C-alpha cells in the first residue's frame, strides 16, 4: 500500500482528533468542537510548516 504525504497527514489528523476530542472533553458538543479544532491545527500546522520549509529552501 502506498499513500501520499498529504493523505497520511489527513488520516493521522482524523484518527488522532477523534480520540483527543473524546478523551479531553466531557460534553459531547465540546468533544466535537475540540476534535475539529485539533484536526484543523494538525492539518493547518503541517501546511504552514511545509511552506516554511519551501521558503527556507528557496
Amino acid at each position, binding site marked *: *500500500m*502506498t*499513500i501520499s504525504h498529504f493523505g*497520511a497527514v489527513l*488520516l*493521522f489528523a*482524523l*484518527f*488522532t482528533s*477523534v*480520540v*483527543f476530542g*473524546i*478523551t479531553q472533553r*466531557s*460534553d459531547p458538543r465540546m468533544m466535537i468542537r475540540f476534535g475539529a479544532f485539533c484536526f484543523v491545527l494538525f492539518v493547518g500546522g503541517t501546511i504552514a510548516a511545509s511552506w516554511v520549509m519551501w521558503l527556507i529552501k528557496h
Partner: protein
Amino acid sequence: MATNVSAPASAQSSTFPTMVLIAGWLVPGAGHFMLRKWIRGTLISVSILAMFVLGLALKGKIYSPNTGDLLDVLNFAGDLGTGILYVLARLFDLGQAAVQVATADYGTKFIVVAGLLNIISAVDAHSLATGRKRS
C-alpha cells in the same frame, strides 16, 4: 455540630476501575464499552484499529523488547500500548523488522501513535469509572 460522614470517592475503591483500565489497554475501546459508552467506545476502537492496520499496510515496523537506542525503547513502549494488537502482530509476525521504503516510516509512526492513543483512551475510561471525569 454537623458532621459529614460520607466517604470520599477514593475510599469507595473497588477493582472495577482497574479492570476498566486494563480492558481499555488490552482491547481498544473496551474500557468505554464496559461503562456503556457505546458511541465513544466504537469511535475509539475504529480509530485506533484503523491506525494500527494502516501502519501495518504501510509496512511499518513493529518494535520488539530491546535495550538499545533510547528511541527504540520508547517506540517499543508506544507499540506496547496497543495491547492485544501488539501481541497478535508479534504472534503472526506482522510488520517489518526494518524500515525498507520511505513511506514505511509513516506506518511505523502510525503504529506507535495508535498505542499512545490507546493508553490515553484507557486512562480516560478509568477516570470515568472512578468519577474523576464527569461524563
